[in-house]
């Protein structure tokens, strides 16, 4: 079991990486008016067949050889449902997968968002070849971080995962997220 929503996000994004996605979009909408947190992970990976999709929420039905899915999906589903929320997977073979989880924000069992910066930077550092688009919305304000934009700045000859670049991006993302959340999470 993960104890932060951001750890669930990291884990769900691993499925997109295993599905050979070249672009992964992570969207978080924290809305205090509707009292919901929506987390959406969308990829352009190889997707899942309808039959496989039916079994994917069952942790004990996992095709170990392809290893697309394991406990991760069940953890996210459990974390959402315990707050009175839900989880939905839309997938098309060859086109990609979108996983959306809805949480009741004020529910006592809702996991904290946790260290989102670390989740984003971990994904980017370990997968410099994948384009990540990260959108974090709190009420009316939004922060967008796109690795495509970073690559435009540093050019082709500087690796995105160079430690100096990673350290700067960590500070950059952290600062913008703190600004968005007012320091709380």
């Amino acid at each position: 079991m993960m104890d932060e929503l951001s750890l669930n996000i990291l884990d769900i994004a691993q499925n997109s990486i295993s599905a050979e996605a070249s672009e992964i979009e992570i969207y978080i909408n924290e809305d205090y008016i509707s009292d919901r947190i929506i987390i959406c992970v969308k990829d352009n990976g190889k997707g899942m067949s309808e039959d496989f999709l039916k079994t994917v929420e069952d942790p004990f039905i996992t095709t170990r050889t392809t290893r697309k899915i394991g406990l991760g999906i069940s953890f996210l589903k459990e974390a959402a449902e315990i707050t009175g929320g839900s989880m939905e997977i839309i997938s098309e073979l060859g086109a990609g997968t979108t996983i959306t989880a809805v949480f009741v924000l004020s529910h006592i069992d809702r996991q904290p968002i946790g260290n989102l910066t670390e989740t984003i930077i971990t994904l980017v550092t370990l997968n410099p070849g994948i384009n990540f688009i990260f959108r974090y919305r709190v009420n009316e304000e939004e922060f967008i971080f796109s690795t495509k934009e970073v690559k435009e700045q540093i050019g082709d000859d500087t690796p995105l995962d160079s430690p100096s670049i990673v350290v700067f991006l960590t500070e950059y993302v952290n600062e913008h997220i703190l600004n968005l959340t007012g320091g709380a999470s």
Partner: protein
Amino acid sequence: MKSLAELAAIKDRMKQNATMREDGDNATRIVVGMATCGIAAGARGIINAVTTELAKRDLEHVTVAQTGCIGMCRLEPIMDVIVPGQEKVTYVHLTPEKVAKIISDHVVNGNVVAEYTIGAYENE
């Protein structure tokens, strides 16, 4: 607030220091287990500790990569340090503090931190 435009200056500084990573065979590789078991055990903090230590020591030539579940979930977080020409060393039950020691002793100075390796764990 910080802007991505600042990256240009960082890039120039990196070029001046000329510590760009070496190609393929000469680069030390660090591989961290990032399956559900690894993440639940704290792999994310390990990646963060590794990159922080590498940046602190200007080790721009070291590459960091991820792997899946290798079937030793109870020993996660797990990380391999692969120095070219030497046998792969697997470290288990990692913490950020252990990572700092591994980077300075093993990656920089070439001394394997035997007490954190899987071999030491199995002999307990």
